């Protein structure tokens, strides 16, 4: 193996790529070659460094110096000054008042506990060697060579790992159902159709450390006896697809995928399937329909996928984050995993605070942390220095909580965090405007299959449109509440069931603001155009 005196890590997460990271990477390689440094310094692509609003980030090891907002113009300067002369370029340094001086994993700004994200920004996601060097495929080798499938399932059950896609179904139980289901052909499906607004954790894992998913899925395949695997990746996640494809190829070459894996007799391979942009396909049964080439519509349940899944096969469908946790549980044991978290929520959870916070991003923490710690200690508090108004837990389909929930713990027994998005709103935001925005989203994404969701989302949007235009009436509140109740009680799948949840949970918090819109025809925050409409009328 070649020895390099320095490694230059280029952040090639999607936000950085949009800021020109790939050009920076090529320019670095060219410049090093031009100066004859390419044999002693290596340029490496890495996952999202978590440098927020800081353009393309570059980290230089062994010093661990981080540069922000790097463009191709600065490349000769960095090479000349830092790599040749050993003097960090002061003006490009990631500043102290900004988070993360080095890498997110070593960041002093927070109490992050990185288990799943530990390799992100550290290793080259396209190198299986680096993954293995950081403990990768240890869990797989241990599971496949020293444990029986039952023991694997029992270990996962003992870890009390729950699905990280939002619903929180016990993973071990799901695997057990699938293992015990009749039928010799079974399938493992990874739900990477991360569509819930505000969530971007799965993207980070797939871009920054895709081997974890493969490892988790192979362990699952061994546990339940599956031969087919699919990763259903959101269509817009080009880099996730690219990195995962490379990872699959490398894993195949290493013998972690394919025929007779590790001489255990297990035949298992994974294909990537790209979604086409429908939010509904993140619902597991709609995802399966889509995977079968059909219209993305949820199925009736029961039967659930563990008994009747892909093409009728017993199927495990798990979220990216869930599969990513598996190798660690197998490698370090369920006992270790259970030592993290709370009574009902074990392990770590990846949160993605966004909206009006200073440092939106991805943070991995143990369950049980308070909302305040994430928003104020990690995400830097409210961007504008203003007051917090509300937080949407998990995204538009989650409940809305107000300021009084800041000290609640994020775990199943207190405040359920859903898939992990925390959409933070400051006091300038109008609640009706927000509801209209959410209603627009569900109206657009409803698959149209069942009546309450198809028609209900439309009517809900219409009513909010009227409210923001000053055309609402107080009676509408009761009507909408009843509609939201019907939708949550009778919709066929989660989409419709949760479309009205934010509104219902916002009612006790912001009744005065709703009344102001409906009775006094005033938008207290001045967001709704109704004020303009009314002024024009005057």
């Amino acid at each position, binding site marked *: 193996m070649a020895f390099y005196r320095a490694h230059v890590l280029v952040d090639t997460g999607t936000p950085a790529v949009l800021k020109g990271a790939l050009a920076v990477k090529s320019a670095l390689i060219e410049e090093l070659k031009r100066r004859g440094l390419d044999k002693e310094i290596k340029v490496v692509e890495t996952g999202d460094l978590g440098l927020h609003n800081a353009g393309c980030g570059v980290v230089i090891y062994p010093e661990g110096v981080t540069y922000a907002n790097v463009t191709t113009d600065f490349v000769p300067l960095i090479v000349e000054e830092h790599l040749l002369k050993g003097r960090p370029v002061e003006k490009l340094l990631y500043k102290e008042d900004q988070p993360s001086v080095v890498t997110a994993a070593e960041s002093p700004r927070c109490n992050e506990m990185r288990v799943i994200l530990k390799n992100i920004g550290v290793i080259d996601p396209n190198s299986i060697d680096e993954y293995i060097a950081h403990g990768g495929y240890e869990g797989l080798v241990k599971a496949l060579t020293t444990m029986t499938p039952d023991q694997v399932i029992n270990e996962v059950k003992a870890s009390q790992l729950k699905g990280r896609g939002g619903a929180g179904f016990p993973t071990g139980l799901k695997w057990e159902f699938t293992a015990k289901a009749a039928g010799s052909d079974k399938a493992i499906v990874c739900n990477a159709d991360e569509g819930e607004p505000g969530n971007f954790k799965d993207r980070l894992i797939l871009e920054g450390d895709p081997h974890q998913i493969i490892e988790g899925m192979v362990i699952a395949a061994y546990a339940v006896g599956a031969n087919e695997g699919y990763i259903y990746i959101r269509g817009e996640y080009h880099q996730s697809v690219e990195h995962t494809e490379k990872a699959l190829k490398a894993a195949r070459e290493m013998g972690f995928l394919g025929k007779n894996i590790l001489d255990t007799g297990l035949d298992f391979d994974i294909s990537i399937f790209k979604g086409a942009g429908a939010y509904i396909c993140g619902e597991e049964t709609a995802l399966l329909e889509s995977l079968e080439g059909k219209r993305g519509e949820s199925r009736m349940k029961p039967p659930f996928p563990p008994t009747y899944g892909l093409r009728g096969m017993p199927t495990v469908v798990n979220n990216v984050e869930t599969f990513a946790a598996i190798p660690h549980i197998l490698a370090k044991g369920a006992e270790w995993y259970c030592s993290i978290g709370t009574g009902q929520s074990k392990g770590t959870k990846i949160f993605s605070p966004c909206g009006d916070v200073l440092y939106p991003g991805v943070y991995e923490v143990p369950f049980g942390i308070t909302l305040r710690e994430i928003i104020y200690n990690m995400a830097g508090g409210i961007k504008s220095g203003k007051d917090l108004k509300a937080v949407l837990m998990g995204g538009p389909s989650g409940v809305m909580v107000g300021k009084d929930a800041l000290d609640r713990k994020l775990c199943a027994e207190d405040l359920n965090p859903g898939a992990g998005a925390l959409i933070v709103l400051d006091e300038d935001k109008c609640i009706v405007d927000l509801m209209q925005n959410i209603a627009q989203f569900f109206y657009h994404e*409803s698959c*149209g299959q069942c009546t309450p969701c198809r*028609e209900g989302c439309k009517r809900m949007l219409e009513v909010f449109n009227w409210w923001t235009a000053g055309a609402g009436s107080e009676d509408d509140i009761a009507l909408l509440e009843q509609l939201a109740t019907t939708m949550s009680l009778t919709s066929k799948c989660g989409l419709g069931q949760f479309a009205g949840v934010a509104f219902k949970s916002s009612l006790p918090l912001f009744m005065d603001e709703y009344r102001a819109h409906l009775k006094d025809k005033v938008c207290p925050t001045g967001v709704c155009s109704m004020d303009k409409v009314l002024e024009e009328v005057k």
Partner: protein
Amino acid sequence: MAEVNVKINGQDIKAQSGQTILEVARAAGIYIPTLCYHSDLMPDGVCRICAVEVKGQRTLCTACCYPVSDGMEVQTHTPKVREARRMIVELMLANHPQECLTCAKNQKCELQKLAKELGIQDVRFKGERRVYDRDLTSPSVIRDPEKCILCGRCVRVCDDIQSVAALNPVNRGWNTLIVPGMCDDLADVVCVNCGQCINRCPTGALKGNDPAPAIWEAIHDPKKHVIVQTAPAVRASIGEEFGLPPGTRVTGKMVTALKMLGFDRVMDTDFTADLTIMEEGSELIQRITEGGALPQLTSCSPGWIKFIEYYFPDLLPNVSSCKSPQQMFGALAKTYYAQKMGIDPADIVSVSIMPCTAKKFECERPEMTSSGYKDVDYVLTTREAAGMMKEAGIDLPNLPDSEYDDPFGVTTGAAVIFGNTGGVMEAALRTAYELVTGQKLDEVNIQAVRGMEGVREASVQVGDITVKAAVAHGLANARKVLEGIRDGRFKDYHFIEIMCCPGGCIGGGGQPQPTSEEIRKARIKAIYEEDETMKIRKSHENPAVLKLYEEFLEKPLSHKSHELLHTHYTARDRKTARKTADKPVKVKVEKS
């Protein structure tokens, strides 16, 4: 299946595991409203009307597809359930044209019934309503997408029962729309015109293309001689349109009613059914003895014919060249009948009353003009014929009986059973046995080919030959048989009867609604009863048919027969069925 104990509304009920809540409740006499559920189709659970409360569940459960389990406790009409159901219906109505009074489905609409049941008196959502153009392109089915509530029954019947899949959803969410093909007109896609979608539609979104106005005009035109033929299946079902229970035979009353309507002659398609047996039976014997494509497939069902033309054109040589009884009748009416009566065929208006919407397409086929005119001018479905009777104030159940008119009025029991699955086969075997062996058939009722299974097979000894026969109904079953012919499983079969619709013609797309297996069985029972009451039960003994041969056709498969009673088929290309591909969906929105 294990026995489980379920409690519904506090009542202890024994059920089988695997049954749905709806099945268990219905068996126990507990009513749960439904809309997208249909007993013929796999439940889909999309309308959500059948929501019930199941103890321990976070949400309500749809009874139509939720399986019972031991110890389950269900409540069907709690305030929570009733409020949810009312809200769902209100949502449907908010997007439904409020034109019940002028709707073809008025008083037969399941949505209307539901709104009434739930006492909906106001629709609180007053917003946009989707507005679409009607699709009037098909000779058989009129689509009115505005009235569609997206229950998906038409899609499922076309897909699962008929394996045609002409209809499917496009767009998403509130803009979801059921369309033929990829937003084409119905006439431009692979549709076999069977009308099963109409029979399953709960609202007025799908209806038959009704020619009644033109028929009224002809009846009241003194220059026109308007004759009508009635298909075998109609007599066993038209009573339902007048409130009689399914399976009530009203043959004589129907004839009286049609005479009261003003038809100049009321004759029977059964007559040409007997004729079909003579021709098709002779064709079969000829194919067996002289060599020809076997198995011979029946050709009476126009939906089925269009199906094989699209999907299995390679097997068209196996299809009997006989026209359907309707078209044989039409060809003879404007030749033999016109000559006999001394009427100019140009003045004859030939109407048929059929259980079938595909017949509307069949009479339009270019080859169906062997009389020199359009052989059959108009096809009325059973429903549409009843509609004319009602408009004329005719109270069918209380009418006296009348006899059919000559010369096509004398018929046999063998012809009546053409109306249900297995009937053509049985009629053919009755005649073939006697013609081939020269011996009298003692047991006229050939049970081996009766029944409701989708595909039935039988071997019948006819003289030296063991005739291997099969019967299929519903096109998904027909597809199995045709694939069996292709792969050799049905290679040594002689004769296969195929009917397009489930149960045969009695389950046709023009029949009264609702439809279900029970209703179809009741109609079939009536058909067999009618057969039992007939004096003559074998087609070759029909004296009027024999007279027709003597006076006009000479003998089966004669030159004249070939000219008038036989036809040919067209291989259809599924790809070019769509003449107007990529047409954008017409979406207009109306503000209220």
